[in-house]
């Protein structure tokens, strides 16, 4: 690390991005370990200690970020809230990517009627704004974490499907695929050894980028009261409850808002960098 320029060239990661990745991973680990770090029951309230000041207002306060309207430590709730948000958006992302990839592969490889039907479904999905799909699902299935994961899957798959479909249609006529066919490789082998490997990096970039959308979707739905229900918490729930105390305890809403902004920024900047990094066209140039 004596020569940062050389370090950068060697590992190909700019210091700033490295910093983003490290902080993001740190936030993830911290929040996933929330039950270990602070084993509390989220439903337990402590009314005598409600709305206590945070450290930056009262240096003697035992609560880093103060307490909420039911006397619960905001720092701990923040940890648990981030945990819920991250877990939900990650599981949603994995499901959405899987569904989208499978549909895209089917549409791209089969073509014809199957392709038309799948394209129609993506059109249908895009005709209803994401937030509305969330509202409908919450209305029909009730507001809980599974509904949000379902909403993420339902809204997220179409962009993956379009990406994979267009990639496959491009790849189908690429010479190295033909070359493998000429060797006598089976369709499945070509799919796994060549096609999937070649669409993996755009898919990873898209998945990373979409993660910030899904975090936004989760917190929006929870904020609207259509997602995570108290006493469980997520970043959206924290903002939503905090907003009732904005005049006096502004930090209750502002701190979780900042966490949301921070997460979304980190992810989109990391995603941007990944896109440039994994683009084989740019790679060939260096």
């Amino acid at each position, binding site marked *: 690390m004596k020569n940062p320029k050389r370090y950068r060239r060697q590992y190909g990661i700019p210091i700033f991005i490295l910093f983003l990745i490290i902080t993001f991973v740190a936030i993830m680990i911290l929040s996933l370990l929330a039950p270990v770090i602070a084993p509390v029951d989220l439903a337990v309230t402590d009314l005598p200690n409600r709305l206590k000041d945070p450290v930056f207002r009262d240096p003697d306060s035992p609560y880093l970020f103060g307490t909420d309207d039911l006397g619960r430590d905001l720092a701990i709730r923040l940890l648990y809230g981030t945990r819920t948000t991250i877990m939900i958006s990650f599981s949603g992302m994995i499901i959405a990517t899987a569904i989208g990839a499978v549909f895209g592969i089917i549409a791209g490889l089969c073509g014809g009627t199957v392709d038309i039907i799948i394209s129609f479904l993506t059109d249908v999905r895009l005709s209803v704004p994401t937030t509305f799909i969330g509202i409908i699902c919450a209305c029909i299935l009730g507001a809980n974490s599974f509904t949000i994961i379902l909403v993420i899957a339902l809204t997220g798959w179409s962009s993956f499907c379009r990406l994979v479909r267009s990639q496959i249609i491009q790849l189908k006529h690429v010479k190295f695929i*033909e070359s493998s066919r000429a*060797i006598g*490789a089976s369709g499945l082998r070509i799919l796994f050894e060549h096609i999937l490997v*070649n669409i993996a990096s755009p898919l990873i970039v898209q998945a990373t980028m979409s993660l910030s959308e899904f975090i936004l979707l989760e917190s929006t739905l929870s904020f609207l009261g259509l997602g995570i229900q108290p006493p469980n918490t997520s970043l959206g729930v924290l903002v939503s409850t905090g907003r009732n105390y904005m005049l006096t305890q502004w930090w209750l809403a502002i701190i979780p808002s900042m966490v949301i902004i921070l997460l979304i920024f980190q992810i989109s900047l990391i995603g941007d960098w990944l896109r440039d990094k994994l683009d084989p066209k740019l790679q060939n140039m260096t």
Partner: protein
Amino acid sequence: MNRDIILSVSGLKKYFPVRRGLILQKTVGQVKAVDDVSFQVYRGETLGIIGESGCGKTTLARMIMGLEKQTEGEITFLGKKIDTEMPADLRKKIQMVFQDPYSSLDPRMNIRRIIEEPLRVHTKLSANEKRQILLPLLKNVGIDENALQKYPHEFSGGQRQRIGIARALILQPELLLCDEPVSALDVSIQAQILNLFKDLEETYHLTMIFVSHDMSVIRHISDRIIVMYLGQIMEIAPKKELFDHTLHPYSQALMSAIPVADPERQRARIPLKGEIPSPLNAPPGCPFSGRCAKAKEICHCQKPGLRHTSAQHYVACHLFAEGCEETL
């Protein structure tokens, strides 16, 4: 020469339908990419197929490789009829080198995996056994052993084509089909790769079909030459015979286009008039009749059959119709 027939093509046709319309598509015509082509490939020889772009030579190669299904006709390889559903044991014995060394190698695979892919598809060899096959092959095609972990984009065009050749040779095929393997390369590199083909032909006793649009390339590499025009064979002859007694007017035009290294020697160029007619509405008679300086009336209305004029020389032209029996 050993007259053992390794591949035989008879009456091969490939018509592409031309469709119009959005949902209910109507077939409004056909492109006759390959139209009634017959020839044989003998063991040990290098058969050059020459023609301008769009003459159907690539489609012909793709059909032989089983990448495209023929509309009509038969391809017989090692005594068995083949089409797109080729059994694995036959597929192993016919391999192909592609035109574009840039797009024909998977950019996400390293060189080792690219060259070994045919082994993975057709055999269950251990890593060590694969290495035993790979190392001498690498030496023969001129790839450095240390390059195996690199990726295609780290190589130049000529090196990539060597990789493509190694990949096609690793199964020790009986027949190697080369579709314009040097046309995407710089001229200086072309010569290296052509010489490599010549060396490999000796080392591996290869039988090759070599497709190109470049007469000088074909002359350098081939034992026998097929001249194609608009999906049909115009002339077949051994190289020397073709160059000494060029019969077909189209072949003569192609010959005259070869650059001559001797500035003292002047050769009469026969320029080709006009464009290749669209294969969509090919003339009813000889496909070349529209551009042929010696065309007679019959050339425009009747298609000439392929007749042989001497032992191994076949030509499809009305000018040589007298006294020759129609064959093939």
